[in-house]
């Protein structure tokens, strides 16, 4: 499986990009406030820990079952979609996905596409690719629209413009939307966006949407949204193109409600969203509305690599709720843009290596204290910290790979000095005699401990060994207790 990437990781390092946010107190405060709000909203939806746990187990079981039958479910989905009149396309790489969509646009002679929220379309850099072909792509989700106006990328998978203040959005609208005066009234800003978009929906031949779940037994795609733009994108234009990662398939309709209950509560703290769309094909003869043509583009982009490995398959359980971001002490402090990947936060750290290779993502897999907050809130119980540990091992090639095929970029994050220091560490700590000598020297010559200990002492006082190790104190204690020799 090739990991074809259009845009490699940004040049500036993750460390530098996160540093910029850390040095911006206003931005940090605003992220912190937003994440606190989302955490509280989620918590309010799950008052009973036992019921939450039962629901998470159910969600995990459904996702694991679906992945265990992924190839046959995808075939069943394709067959039923075709039966429903949906045209199905498979894309192994982002470029293939772009070409498929550009091809549909060209055949329809369409110069513009109106998009509902879709992270997979971000992943394949669709807007960019279409614009290069002279096709305009207009985001219709309010957050995505703001991000697009600003020429940025989404900083959160559910709330793309969470990094922007109301005032920034007001200035952006006044500057970029023709005929709009500055207003920081949220209601007015939303009305402005709505008016712009209504006009586009009416005039546009092709609409695009993402997919939250695809049901194999009926050939149905499900779309969760709050703004109604998703329904507009999928019903008003003549052609509806849906795009999804191959992992989103479930077998039965009855698998959807538990996942939906987990998704909306975990994502936005809502028991149910304003809109939930079940879409089972284009307009049928005799029907008065709906698209005349419908397509589903199923994208791999590295997912089969995770699927093929028992140690990384759980990555694909994700239902993209974003709760791991909201609860992550790292994401909370730097926001999503610093990651430089389509998917930020904990889920971004475990999925991006499969999409982009381990070489460009080695900084991301280490950027976690392994605190476990992500795994604790994940609605489908993805063991994110464990996956990070395993990705670190593959990135460093620290020991034989227990599984095949190797990950793209395996070993390319290896730092020779780090590798050497762990070799020495291991030698020292597995030999009681050497360790004894080492701790004797470290405690006896504690005054020689350097005052500067690399990055540790940038923000902390140095670590200085105690005058005697615990081993020595225990020996002394035992000696003092043993009966005196004559």
């Amino acid at each position, binding site marked *: 499986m090739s990991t074809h990437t259009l845009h490699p990781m940004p040049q500036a390092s993750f460390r530098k990009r996160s540093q910029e946010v850390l040095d911006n107190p206003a931005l940090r405060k605003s992220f912190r406030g937003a994440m606190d709000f989302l955490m509280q909203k989620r918590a309010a939806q799950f008052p009973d820990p036992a019921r939450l746990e039962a629901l998470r187990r159910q969600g995990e079981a459904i996702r694991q079952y679906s992945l265990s039958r992924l190839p046959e479910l995808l075939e069943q989905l394709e067959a039923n979609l075709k039966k429903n009149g949906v045209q199905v396309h498979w894309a192994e790489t982002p470029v293939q996905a772009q070409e498929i969509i550009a091809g549909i646009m060209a055949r329809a002679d369409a110069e513009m596409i109106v998009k509902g929220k879709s992270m997979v379309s971000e992943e394949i850099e669709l807007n960019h690719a279409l614009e290069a072909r002279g096709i305009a792509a207009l985001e219709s989700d309010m957050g995505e629209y703001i991000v697009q106006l600003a020429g940025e990328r989404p900083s959160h998978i559910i709330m793309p413009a969470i990094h922007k203040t109301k005032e920034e959005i007001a200035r952006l609208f006044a500057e970029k939307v023709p005929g709009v005066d500055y207003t920081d009234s949220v209601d007015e800003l939303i009305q402005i966006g709505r008016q712009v978009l209504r006009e586009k929906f009416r005039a546009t031949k092709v609409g695009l949407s993402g997919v939250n779940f695809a049901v194999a037994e009926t050939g149905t795609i499900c779309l969760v949204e709050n703004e109604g733009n998703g329904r507009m994108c999928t019903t008003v234009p003549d052609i509806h193109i849906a795009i999804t990662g191959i992992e989103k398939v479930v077998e039965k309709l009855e698998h959807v409600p538990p996942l939906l209950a987990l998704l909306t509560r975990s994502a936005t703290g809502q028991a149910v969203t304003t809109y939930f769309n079940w879409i089972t094909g284009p307009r049928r003869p005799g029907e008065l509305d709906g698209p005349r043509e419908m397509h589903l583009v199923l994208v791999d982009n590295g997912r089969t690599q995770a699927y093929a490995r028992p140690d990384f398959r759980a990555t694909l359980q994700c239902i993209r709720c974003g709760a791991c971001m909201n609860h992550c002490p790292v994401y909370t402090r730097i926001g999503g843009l610093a990651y430089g990947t389509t998917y930020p936060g904990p889920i971004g750290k475990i999925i991006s290596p499969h999409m982009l290779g381990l070489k460009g993502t080695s900084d991301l897999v280490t950027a976690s204290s392994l605190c476990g907050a992500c795994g604790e809130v994940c609605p489908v*119980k993805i063991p994110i910290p464990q996956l990070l540990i395993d990705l670190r091992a593959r990135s460093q090639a620290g020991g034989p790979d227990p599984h095949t095929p190797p990950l793209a970029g395996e070993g390319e994050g290896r730092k020779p000095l780090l590798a050497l220091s762990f070799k020495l560490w291991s030698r020292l700590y597995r030999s*009681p005699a050497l360790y004894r000598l080492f701790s004797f020297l470290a405690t006896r010559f504690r005054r020689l401990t350097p005052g500067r200990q690399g990055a540790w002492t940038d923000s902390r006082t140095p*670590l200085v060994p105690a005058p005697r190790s615990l081993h020595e104190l225990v020996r002394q204690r035992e000696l003092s207790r043993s009966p005196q020799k004559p």
Partner: protein
Amino acid sequence: MNLSPEHGNPCPAARPHTVYFFGTCLIDLFDPRAGISAMDILEQEGVRVVFPEAQSCCGQPAYTSGYPAEALAVAEQQVRLFTEDWPIVVPSGSCAGMMKHHWPRLFGADHPLASQVAAVATRVYEFTEFLVKILNVKLEDKGQPTKVVLHTSCSARREMGVHLTSKALLGQLAQVEVVQQEREAECCGFGGAFSVRHPELSAAMAGDKAQALLASGAEQLVSADCGCLANINGTLAKSGKSLKGQHIATFLKSRLEPQA
């Protein structure tokens, strides 16, 4: 990493007469007093404490940095020390979590020591967990009135599920008022190698944690994990603050002795 709440140990039928004590590499070199205090408390409870001389480290630093082979070599050396069927008490949620939840995976089912590792994993207890759940201790506070804030490590909280046992022990101390901190469950930013691999992020997290602990109004800070303590104490000291955390074993020991 097992983060579900069902990871408590089965309780031994009888009160154990002997335990192994695994001191951890951080306590060994940087805070041996915490280790001695923990051993003293266990002995005062009538338990014989065996400290295997050849112990060093659970292997976690290498394991979480992507060097499982190096971690395994060190962990093998430790597993061989626990030949008797005694509980293994560890004064760190992080190291206990490594031994209990990660060792079986690190060794793998085909390793010659696999069955021993599985048996050891069921016998590993974090220190405060052991005092509360197995020994059911009743502490008599002989200290002066004081206000204490508790920092619980993420491993103790989410991996070992023992965040309540430190709290329960402090709650037994009549003269100790436990005060709350904002965002109690948030990580202090240590994360082992994370603290030097991503120093600015780690420092931002440690700085916020230090602020929250200071704002709690506590006179003393305790924690059951030396990694967090090294990080938090180093951060507090660098900014000239007088609050200095100590291991919960050291603190409990001081409360159980008559004070001058």
